[in-house]
């Protein structure tokens, strides 16, 4: 509880950032985000773009896993549906990207409904297995239906154009990516402070009691899965238009596990956590690479095992966070904030 802050209207108290200090922090962060592309090197700019895109995906997955408590291993598959969906719409049907991206999101949401229908009636672990099956099926479709996707060949997509600017440079894409991430975060935040979001969390915490309070558990789980898939589909579309070249290898089971790592590490069921996790997981391979490079001279074998270290690192980081800090980086951030709330006193 903060002292000295009094609200006169419910709307003030229910706002997303009710306290002046929070608004100030958000303002500073926004300022940093705006200044960043002007001072950052191209390498860091591209990383930032990847973080923005990953944040949208992490928010989508968190909606399902963190807030509603359902496990999904199909992140890779749904990203693929969004990516190939939007890519093919722009490539084959000449749709402008600002139209194809939302449509791809809707297509992915529909796919979510199809997978969710049989599995969400059952206990949570069945969804995990069903999404695993979906992952395999989608991978197979991408690599075998060559008439649609080009098979194991790469799909090349022209880079998108917005207001006359080609978004082919990291600098240009940055604004689009960040805006999308901000909108997604706002969407999820609004959702969670209102009726629908509450029902998601209720299902996670006590689905029987939720039912006894009038929540149609099955339907709500479907809605959660569809909404999550929509966001993930948009993420996939963003990936397609950012990279302009996509292959099936980008959307495997390993990708699903990578995104799970993002939200576990970042903090399940938090918006901050989606961002923190996305940042860490995007930066981690870069970090491992530079460590590997420097070790190259002393341990030549390092180069050979580097890609596997990356793969293993994600798995290891999942386990470490689950055991040591299950609430993730978001909890660490809250701890830091709490420290400063009463600073310089320690209690």
């Amino acid at each position, binding site marked *: 509880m903060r002292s000295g802050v009094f609200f006169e209207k419910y709307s003030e108290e229910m706002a997303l950032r009710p306290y002046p200090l929070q608004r100030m922090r958000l303002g500073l962060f926004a300022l940093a985000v705006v200044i960043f592309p002007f001072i950052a090197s191209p390498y860091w700019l591209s990383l930032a773009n990847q973080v923005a895109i990953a944040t949208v995906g992490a928010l989508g997955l968190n909606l399902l896993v963190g807030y509603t408590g359902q496990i999904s291993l199909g992140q890779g598959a749904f990203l693929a549906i969004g990516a190939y969906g939007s890519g093919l719409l722009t490539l084959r049907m000449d749709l402008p990207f600002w139209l194809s991206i939302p449509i791809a999101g809707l297509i992915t949401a529909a796919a979510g409904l199809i997978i969710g229908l049989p599995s969400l009636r059952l206990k949570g672990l069945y969804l995990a297995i069903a999404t695993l099956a979906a992952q395999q099926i989608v991978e197979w479709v991408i690599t075998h239906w060559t008439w649609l996707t080009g098979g194991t060949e790469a799909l090349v997509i022209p880079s998108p154009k917005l207001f006359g600017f080609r978004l082919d440079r990291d600098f240009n894409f940055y604004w689009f990516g960040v805006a999308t991430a901000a909108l997604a975060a706002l969407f999820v935040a609004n959702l969670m402070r209102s009726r629908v979001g509450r029902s998601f969390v209720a299902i996670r915490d006590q689905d029987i009691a939720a039912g006894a309070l009038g929540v149609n558990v099955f339907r709500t789980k479907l809605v959660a899965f569809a909404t999550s898939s929509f966001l993930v589909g948009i993420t996939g579309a963003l990936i397609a238009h950012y990279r302009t070249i996509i292959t099936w290898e980008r959307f495997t089971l390993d990708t699903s596990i990578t995104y799970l790592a993002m939200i576990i590490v970042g903090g399940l069921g938090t918006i901050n956590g989606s961002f923190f996790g996305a940042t860490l997981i995007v930066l981690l391979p870069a970090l491992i690479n530079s460590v590997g490079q420097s070790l190259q001279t002393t341990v030549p074998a390092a180069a050979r095992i580097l890609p596997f270290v990356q*793969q*293993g690192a994600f798995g290891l980081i999942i386990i470490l966070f689950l055991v040591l800090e299950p609430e993730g980086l978001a909890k660490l951030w809250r701890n830091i904030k709490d420290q400063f709330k009463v600073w310089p006193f320690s209690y």
Partner: protein
Amino acid sequence: MDTFIQLTLSGLSNGMVYALVAVGFVVVFKASDVINFAQGEFLMFGAYLCFAFIAQFGLPWSLSVVLAVAGCAGLGLLVERLVLRPLIGEPVISMIMATIGLSSVMKALVNGIWGPRPRAFPSFLPEGNIEIGGAVLGLDRVLVVVVAGLLLFVLQWFFKTTREGIAMRAIADDNQAALSMGISIRRVLAVAWALAAVTAALGGMMLANMVGVGQEVSHVGLRVFPVVILGGLDSIPGAIVGGAIIGLLEQYTGGYIGHGLNMIVPFLVLILVLMIRPYGLFGKRIIERV
């Protein structure tokens, strides 16, 4: 007709491997409600470990098998101790995600140590064919069916009759009640995980005899899910029957339909089963008491 018999034999031998892996999966699920997503990686580990002992250390195959089994049992115990036990009391979703993380770590380890390229596995099952009723059958596959079948029979007997087996079913049913009967949950869980690792490893070794070691092996691990969904997540007979059915389906699809469909037919079956009869052929419906 000849093709049919060949396909049937291939299907059954693959199916028995799947069944072995699936039984380990079911054991862990029955004992702790945990879905072990790393079960496929246990299979991979077993295969590669055996490969290492035979091909890289030059040991005789019988010793290698024993060592590999022991190694995997140890791995199972280690996993239970380091990954699952600290998470006891956390919601099951955490434990499941830990096994997902584990599968990544194990896959990375195997790839890092032995590399992702396929290796020729020094087969210790006898080469050659036998003839039954005019059809020519690979001896190695016939042996796999027989040996695996025996193993599975023994496991089923183990669960029905021995104290350990009954203890495992007891703690799955009710932790508290089991504790008050003097059953050590920790020990039973450790045994469950060791058993899961061992059955997977045995399956992996048999598979390696038939097809070698390589990335394909980890894909086999994923087959365990269609098998247990079809058979029932908590049923050992279900795992055996499910394994056989999936193995046969794969071969028949590959042989008679083709187009690479055999790779996803198991997963299509999985989705179908979830729609029609989610608890599988032999699974039990559970009532949740409030």
